[in-house]
């Protein structure tokens, strides 16, 4: 803001200086052309005028020099628009300087010529001649007056003083002269005669005249008489024979007309001489004035040229800057110049254009933001989706996936993207599925259940494949869910129902069977012979025992199928393990332990976990039963947030079928097994958010339970151990 204000001020100052200079130039010219010829006091004003003129020229020269320097610097620096400025300045200067110089030359020549023509030898001699003529005329009159005076002096010389006084009037009349005065040698008036009506005091001769007359010389002179007139005066001596000499003075007024003409000639002569004397001065002065005016005008023109050029090229500079800004993506440029001409129109159009571009860019940005937000929204949905989502292109290359897909497949899919090289197994299974689906039918959507093995556990996935036909990205979308747990739950639920019904159906007849057998024993026992009675009693006992066993089995069924209440408390895992194996000290297979050195705590139901250990140890004992040197090892380990309990044995290991179905209820390889041992183990472990795995590992088999650690315990030592 400040800068523009300074610029504006500068501009105004420049304009003012230019205007003042121009005005002054014209005024100077006017003054010089008028005042020289008039009789005003040029002497005092002229130096001031010239000084101010020269001062203005110096100021203008400094300004012009500064402007030109700035322009040259801009030109050298290659500022956009400076070339145009320079060219415009040159054109302006050419346009003004050439005619100015021509006019100046012509004017100077004309001036010199004109002033020269004033002075002509003929005019000179004519004036001189006129002057001489007048002078001759006057001298003629003077000569005549001299003669008259001489004759009067002769006539007066013969008279005495009394007759002189009487005769002077008549003598004056005869001679037709204005005034005659008779004086003594000392200048005292003896007699006087005047042609005028009123008697005027006679004009006194000067001392030198009197002296001249005393020396017997006559005086004759033309004298100025007052403002207008000329006077002829003659003073002659009158010599008496015996008396003292006297002096006669006669004067004659030059006729008024002659006097006036003579004066006019005189004035003309004087004026002419005046001009003649000052001709070179005049010429120089006019030339100086012309030069000053020309200098002022030219400097003003150059200054104006610079100003106009800057003004003209300013929009170009703005346009250049604006274009550069637009190229760099800045659409905020607006024209500060509002002008009525085409350049103004151009800059305004440019402003309008940048405005529209700016709006368009804003709209695009908004759109992009909305799009990004939409994408983010979609991807956040995909990320929170529990189902795995994979997309493939037509060549079955993975294009996108969500975190759930990775989690379900148990593999990182990052390397499987087209840029990567890896090819995880789960992905290959999906590809197979898509290929078979494609070859099987021409439907755009199909659904399959697939079994895959993830980290050695089998997972059942429900996979839905959709074909993306058309659009920008043709290919396939694969959505899959891990339904292992679901199926398991379904199976369990089914089993629970079966178990309950079976229990009910089986339990119902068991009591009558038992009662009937006991009654048989009671009624028939006493009536039979001892041998038979014993047999009966044994049979009845078998029946009763088996019924009781059957009842137990049915109750176990129920137990399994029921959703038991779960108590939750802190459990010291190592303590629990030691506690449980204490019960197995007497058995054939020795149980070794390899427990974690740290204390391990987890939240859970002690009774149930105890049962898990019992089941696992029993399982192992049964597995090593036939071994000569049976070994059972229980290990506990801790990782960052889980604990593992492993039960190893050196038994024969599991067959593949067993490995895949070991946790299914009622699946057993033992003659007397219920098939519920491992199923219950798995059920309990899963109730505790853990996982159980089974595998063969030298020297036999291993069952591993992974349980989440309790994170709430800060210092477990303060807690009472629950074992």
């Amino acid at each position: 803001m400040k800068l523009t204000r300074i610029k504006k001020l500068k501009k105004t100052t420049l304009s003012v200086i230019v205007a003042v200079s121009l005005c002054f130039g014209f005024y100077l010219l006017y003054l010089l052309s008028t005042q020289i010829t008039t009789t005003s006091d040029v002497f005092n004003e002229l130096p001031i005028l010239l000084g101010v003129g020269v001062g203005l020229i110096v100021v203008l020269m400094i300004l012009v020099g500064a402007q030109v320097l700035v322009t040259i610097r801009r030109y050298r620096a290659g500022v956009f628009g400076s070339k145009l400025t320079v060219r415009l300045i040159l054109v302006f200067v050419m346009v003004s300087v050439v005619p100015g110089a021509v006019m100046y030359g012509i004017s100077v020549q004309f001036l010199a010529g004109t002033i020269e023509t004033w002075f002509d030898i003929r005019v000179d001699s004519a004036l001189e001649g006129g002057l001489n003529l007048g002078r001759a005329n006057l001298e003629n009159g003077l000569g005549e007056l001299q003669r008259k005076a001489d004759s009067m002096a002769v006539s007066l010389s013969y008279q005495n003083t009394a007759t002189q006084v009487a005769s002077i009037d008549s003598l004056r009349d005869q001679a037709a002269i204005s005034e005659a005065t008779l004086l003594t040698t000392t200048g005292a008036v003896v007699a006087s005669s005047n042609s005028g009506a009123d008697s005027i005091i006679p004009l006194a001769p000067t001392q030198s005249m009197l002296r001249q007359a005393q020396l017997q010389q006559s005086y004759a002179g033309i004298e100025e008489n007052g403002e207008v007139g000329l006077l002829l005066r003659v003073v002659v001596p009158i010599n008496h024979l015996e008396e003292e000499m006297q002096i006669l003075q006669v004067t004659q007024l030059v006729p008024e007309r002659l006097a006036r003409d003579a004066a006019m000639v005189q004035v003309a002569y004087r004026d002419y001489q005046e001009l003649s004397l000052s001709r070179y001065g005049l010429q120089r002065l006019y030339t100086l004035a012309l030069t000053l005016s020309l200098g002022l005008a030219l400097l003003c023109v150059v200054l104006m040229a610079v100003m106009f050029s800057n003004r003209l090229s300013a929009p170009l500079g703005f346009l250049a800057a604006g274009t550069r800004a637009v190229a760099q993506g800045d659409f905020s440029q607006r024209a500060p110049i509002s002008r009525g001409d085409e350049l103004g129109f151009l800059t305004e159009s440019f402003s309008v254009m940048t405005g529209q571009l700016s709006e368009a860019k804003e709209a695009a940005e908004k759109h992009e933001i909305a799009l990004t937000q939409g994408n983010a929204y979609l991807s956040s949905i995909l990320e929170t989706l529990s189902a795995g989502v994979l997309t493939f292109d037509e060549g079955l290359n993975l294009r996108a996936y969500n975190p759930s897909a990775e989690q379900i497949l148990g593999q990182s899919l990052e390397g499987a993207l087209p840029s990567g090289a890896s090819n995880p197994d789960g992905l290959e299974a999906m590809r197979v599925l898509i290929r078979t689906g494609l070859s099987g039918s021409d439907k755009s959507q199909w659904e399959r259940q697939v079994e895959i093995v993830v980290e050695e556990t089998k997972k059942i996935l429900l996979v839905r494949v959709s074909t993306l036909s058309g659009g920008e990205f043709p290919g396939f979308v694969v959505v899959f869910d891990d339904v292992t747990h679901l199926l398991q739950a379904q199976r369990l639920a089914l089993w629970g129902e079966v178990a309950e019904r079976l229990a009910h159906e089986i339990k119902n007849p068991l009591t009558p069977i038992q009662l009937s057998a006991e009654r048989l024993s009671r009624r028939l026992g006493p009536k039979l012979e001892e041998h038979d009675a014993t047999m009966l009693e044994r049979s009845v006992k078998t029946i009763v025992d088996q019924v009781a066993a059957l009842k137990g089995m049915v109750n176990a069924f129920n137990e399994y199928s029921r959703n038991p209440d779960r108590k939750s408390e802190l459990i010291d895992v190592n303590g629990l393990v030691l506690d449980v194996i204490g019960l197995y000290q007497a058995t054939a297979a020795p149980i070794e332990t390899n427990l974690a050195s740290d204390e391990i705590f987890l939240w859970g139901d002690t009774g149930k976990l105890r049962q898990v250990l019992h089941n696992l140890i029993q399982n192992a004992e049964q597995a090593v039963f036939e071994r000569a040197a049976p070994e059972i090892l229980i290990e506990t380990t801790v990782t960052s947030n889980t604990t593992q309990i492993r039960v190893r044995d050196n038994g024969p290991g599991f067959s593949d079928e067993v490995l895949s179905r070991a946790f299914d209820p009622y699946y057993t390889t033992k003659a007397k097994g219920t098939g519920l041992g491992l199923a219950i183990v798995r059920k309990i472990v899963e109730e505790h958010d853990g996982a159980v795995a089974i595998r063969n590992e030298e020297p036999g088999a291993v069952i591993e339970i992974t349980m989440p650690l309790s994170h709430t315990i800060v210092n477990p030592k303060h807690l009472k151990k629950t074992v």
Partner: protein
Amino acid sequence: MQSVKLQQNDATFSLDATFNIDLSPIIQDALHKGIALPFVLDFNVMRQRWNIWDQTVVEASLPYRLSYNVLTRQYHIRDKLRGRDKNFDTLEQVLTAAGIIMDLAVFNAEQLMPEVEYEAQVRLRLEAGALPSALQLEALESDKWEVSSPWYRWVMD
């Protein structure tokens, strides 16, 4: 400058001064072509002060013209201020007459304070500004037109 004298007649101080006027040929030429020469006698009385600017107490000047009538071939001194109007036949006469200024009343006694030291100065010059304007230009350019006696200064009693 030949002589200068300040006289007190009652309350008035009057100046008598005699100058040698020497006209350059160019001025004589102009005079003989009928151009009147304006002369000015400047007289100042100043009080000296501690700083460099003296205080001017009295400022008097006497303008008069010296001319030549080409018709009558007479020289003429006209002093309108004092009503002096005299013709002369020769240049020497008129220059001598023009250089003599007699009995010019310059100031009254009450204009000066007693017992203060004053300094008077006097000069006679040709006043170019009173020349006909065309000649002023010439006079501006050429110093041949400059006729001026230096200031004659003296301390008054």
